[in-house]
């Protein structure tokens, strides 16, 4: 089943007189259960494309569909609503809310969906990333790897269709990077959750079932790995 479809996407950043064509006509379709990486040189448009899929940004032209709904017709609040239950994010920096504990960070997306008293769900998620004993720790009391694992648990909290991760391992050492990737791979296999990564990291790429290569804002190669 197709969960995300992008047709002829362009994105032009304009800063003063300077125009940057970050994406120049990208067509992309993502099916349920994929474990896909976007690769390409720095500045090739990986992050920009991921933001299009994640409804964080609107394209200059082209259309984005999530679950057959046209995102490009939605306003900010409608997009926020769509993201809430459908898309989870993992960022390169360990994007936790610094004032909240590991437990509360994972709980937050559930609260935003109006789901209260989800203690067993939250603990189950923390357990899945091996952090049930860190539930009451704040981000600054955890290592980078631990923080990123909390971010993974948070992204999974609402059972999203799609998880987007922008260089999730870039700030982690080999061991922690491998750990994060194997957690996500396992989830992908067990729950059929769709993952899309943007990365340079060969450790990530080797897990991928599909590798999309970008160059200068266009798709250069799109290969499936058996």
């Amino acid at each position, binding site marked *: 089943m197709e969960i995300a479809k992008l047709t002829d996407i362009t994105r032009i950043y304009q800063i003063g007189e300077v125009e940057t064509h970050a994406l120049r006509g990208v067509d992309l379709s993502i099916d349920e259960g994929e474990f896909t990486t976007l690769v390409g040189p720095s500045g090739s448009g990986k992050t920009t494309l991921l933001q299009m899929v994640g409804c*964080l940004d609107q394209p200059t032209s082209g259309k984005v569909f999530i679950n057959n709904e046209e995102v490009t017709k939605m306003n*900010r609040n409608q997009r926020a609503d769509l993201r*809430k239950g459908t898309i989870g994010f993992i*960022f390169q920096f360990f994007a936790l809310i610094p*004032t*909240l504990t590991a437990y509360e960070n994972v709980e*937050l997306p559930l*609260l935003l969906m109006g789901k209260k008293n989800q203690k067993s769900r939250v603990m189950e998620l923390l357990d899945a990333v091996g952090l049930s004993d860190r539930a009451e720790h704040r981000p600054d009391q955890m290592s980078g790897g631990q923080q990123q694992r909390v971010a993974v648990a948070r992204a999974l909290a609402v059972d999203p269709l799609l998880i987007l991760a922008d260089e999730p391992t870039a700030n982690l050492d080999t061991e922690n990077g491998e750990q994060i990737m194997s957690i996500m791979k396992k989830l992908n296999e067990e729950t059929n959750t769709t993952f899309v990564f943007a990365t340079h990291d060969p450790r990530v790429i080797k897990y991928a079932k599909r590798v999309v290569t970008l160059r200068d804002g266009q798709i250069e190669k799109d290969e499936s790995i058996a």
Partner: protein
Amino acid sequence: MNYILKMSLRNLGRNRRRTALSAIAIAMGTALLLLMSATIRGEMRGALELNINLRTGHLQVHTEDYKDENMSLKRADMIEAPMAISSQIEEITEVKSAAPRLNASGILAYKNETIGIQIIGIDPPSETNAPYRDGLVAGEFLEADDREGVLIGLPLSENLNLNPGDTINLIVNTSEGDTDKQSFTVRGVYTTDTPGYDKATIFMPLEKAQTITRTENYASMVYILLYDMDDTAAVKNALQSSQYVIEDWEEINKLFIIVMELSNAMMFFFNMMVLGVTATVIMNTLLMAVYERTREMGILGALGMKSKQIKALFLTEATLLGLGGVLIGLAIGVPIVLYYAQVGFYFGDMGISANSGIMLGNSIYPYPTIGDAISVSLAALIITILSGYYPASQAAKLEPVDALHGTN
């Protein structure tokens, strides 16, 4: 606990010193406004009370043309046989006391000094003279049949080094338009703690005042004090007369009441200024917080938080800050106001003459009211929340993608 409330509370804990400083700014604003409003109210009440007790009474009976300012001594402007009228008025149960008064202007001459003064002829035994009898600091009070004695105020006695037993000369305007000069003996020295009044008001028995001004059996007014000032209108109605005019304290103190309203208006601007300074501090604090947490707003946006909720996050923070600040302000301000309400601020002679119609004592006693405390607290709280509005909408305006690109 609601997650927005929880996050706001924790956000306040992030930079404790900054939060504390902002709360102190609100607290100081609140305490200052509390003290100012109680002081102005106290000053106005005190001044009105003095005006009533020393100069105007609750009610006056006088002729249509009588004006306090010019102290006319023409028969047509005065009341005939005032003692009979006043003893009749004293029969009314609501009336505490009533007595004739004769106002005249004159000059006091002593050694080489001459000083313009007001002479008030009083009925010495009357209750209306309580402020002067109770305020006697030297010598004795006047007797009704005293033909040479006068009562002078403490500032006059100090300035001229006059003591009971000393002789002074008084040059007094008469009803015939000329002046008469006679010597008098200082019987006693009084103080009402109202320098503007005490330094220029001399008392003598009514009969002597009538003789020297040649207004036999006439007085300027009958001066009436009530037990309860709320009875003013009722007593005024009961006193209606075809011959004379009955004026109440509100009518006589018209000027003063205008001044009072003016000072309320000035107070409003002063309040606005204090609150404006507080608002600037709060707005600055919250704008800094928005700036520092830009990326966090991006994360919250990516998680699906709507602009409305992000705005609520900052407004809740402002509200909590305001509540904390106001509570601290009340905790500091209330004891200070209550203390000064007892002790008073001593100012001495503020140089305002009693003839201006405004009577100021030498001390101001702040007069706190629950109503003032509530309105000051609410004003401080509302201003704090309003100053959170701009930063909050700045935060809510951020697109998640831009916020994620932000610093930090």
